């Protein structure tokens, strides 16, 4: 059972690296969706010993939202803005992947020293969750297109979710569901905003927004 969880964690880190190395936005959306489904499975596997209705709810809601609803919303936004790929991010793809690997190494180092309440079901959950957080932040600050930044936000949230299901399984379902609802609203609003930015300015390059004049 533990090696299955370890495998899922390695897959999680792999999806992180893939998001960092991809330039096509539709492939990135699919990868983020796969990551969401993966995390739903993690929630089930990590708590397989004491599978309650609450865990099931969190896992199923997570899979449905991240695997189906978000990709649909994001693909709709992508069709509306008519772009295909992220061009010239602030940090290139190769440095991004290397930074992702470095983030994983740092997370392993941090996780070994992090005092936790109780022992997580797998030694890899904390490092993988922390590195997912780092990768999400990296994508938010290093990509120019608003849609890519939305994806970074989702990856960041995936990191929080992984940390939650792996470590704090005593956390009340209300908090988890609240987070999921927040993220849902955020993606919904971001999709609309991206669409409006694109229609108003013919571009969703956020560097251009910085030079906006009255």
């Amino acid at each position, binding site marked *: 059972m533990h090696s299955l969880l*370890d*495998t899922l*964690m*390695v897959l999680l880190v792999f999806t992180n690296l893939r998001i960092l*190395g991809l330039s096509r936005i539709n492939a990135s959306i699919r990868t983020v969706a796969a990551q969401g489904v993966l995390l739903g499975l993690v929630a089930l596997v990590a708590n397989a010993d004491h599978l309650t209705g609450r865990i099931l709810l969190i896992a199923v809601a997570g899979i449905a939202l991240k695997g189906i609803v978000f990709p649909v919303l994001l693909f709709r936004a992508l069709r509306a803005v008519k772009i295909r790929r992220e061009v010239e991010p602030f940090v290139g*793809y*190769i440095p991004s992947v290397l930074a992702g690997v470095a983030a994983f*190494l740092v997370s392993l180092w941090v996780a070994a020293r992090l005092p936790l309440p109780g022992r997580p079901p797998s030694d890899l959950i904390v490092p993988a969750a922390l590195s997912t957080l780092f990768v999400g932040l990296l994508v938010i600050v290093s990509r120019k297109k608003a849609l890519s930044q939305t994806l970074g936000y989702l990856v960041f949230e995936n990191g929080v979710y992984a940390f939650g299901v792996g470590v704090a399984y005593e956390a009340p379902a209300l908090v988890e569901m609240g987070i999921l609802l927040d993220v849902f609203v955020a993606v919904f609003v971001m999709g609309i905003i991206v669409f409006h930015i694109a229609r108003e300015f013919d571009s969703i390059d956020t560097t251009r927004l910085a030079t906006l004049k009255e």
Partner: protein
Amino acid sequence: MNPATLLPAALSVLLAPLFLGVINRTKAVFAGRAGRPLLQTYIDLAKLARKGAVYSRTTTWVFRLAPITALAAGLVALLLLPLGGFPAPISFPGDFVLLILVLGTSRFLTVIGALDTGSSFEGMGASREASVSALAEPVLFLCLAVAARESGQSTLSGIVGGLTGADWQRAGPALVLLATSLLAILLAENSRIPVDDPNTHLELTMIHEVMVLDHGGPDLALILSGAALKLWILAALLVGLILPGRSGSPWLDSLLFSAGMLVLGVVIGIVESTIARLRLNRVPQFLVGAGAFAVMALALIMR
């Protein structure tokens, strides 16, 4: 040294061109063609060996040295490699460094042999080969370091023999990462798709083929068999690391090993049939990805 220990290496020299045949046959099946005969590479080698060689007046001895080293390096590397349950004829702590050094030497001489012709196309191929291998070689080192660390051995025979089913249970994900990374290196080092296309004959897009354009006859035969050996060596290394457990009987292990090589040949054929070649500026990204896998495997094992 007991001559019988050289038998696996000798058999490898004979079988290496067949491995290419397996890959080509898989690709042919995927494309719905009958494909060339399985033994086509042997026929090509025999044909080339009967021909005479033509040398340009602008070339020097460096140009003639390159084909000989290509084959010689393959033969030396075979002696360092444990094959199918039999330990390597030559084995000492840290011998995998020598294996990589030998392969690197052959590549270096092929590169300067290509530069020696003074042809601009060959210079282009040489520069590409050098930049690809500069990225691939550290990753190969990393992969072997991971395997050495996991098996706790420092000789190639020990590393290949020391990875057992228990290691796969303990560090399965890390070993899968290692195998993926090694497969990527195998494809890159042997100029296969997605890094280079062995069938292409357009000078502007080739990497390995363009470096050997000016070699002909016996020299080309030497280069071809050297390339086949190099592919065989890296494939044997990968199969040796993947197959867990040793039954104790070398003959059964050899059978398993041969089956593994056959499967790997089919896998390479499937990879070449299903994915497109990468644009040249994406190749470093591919190799950095392989390196990222190897570093992750190392981190997971050192943890």
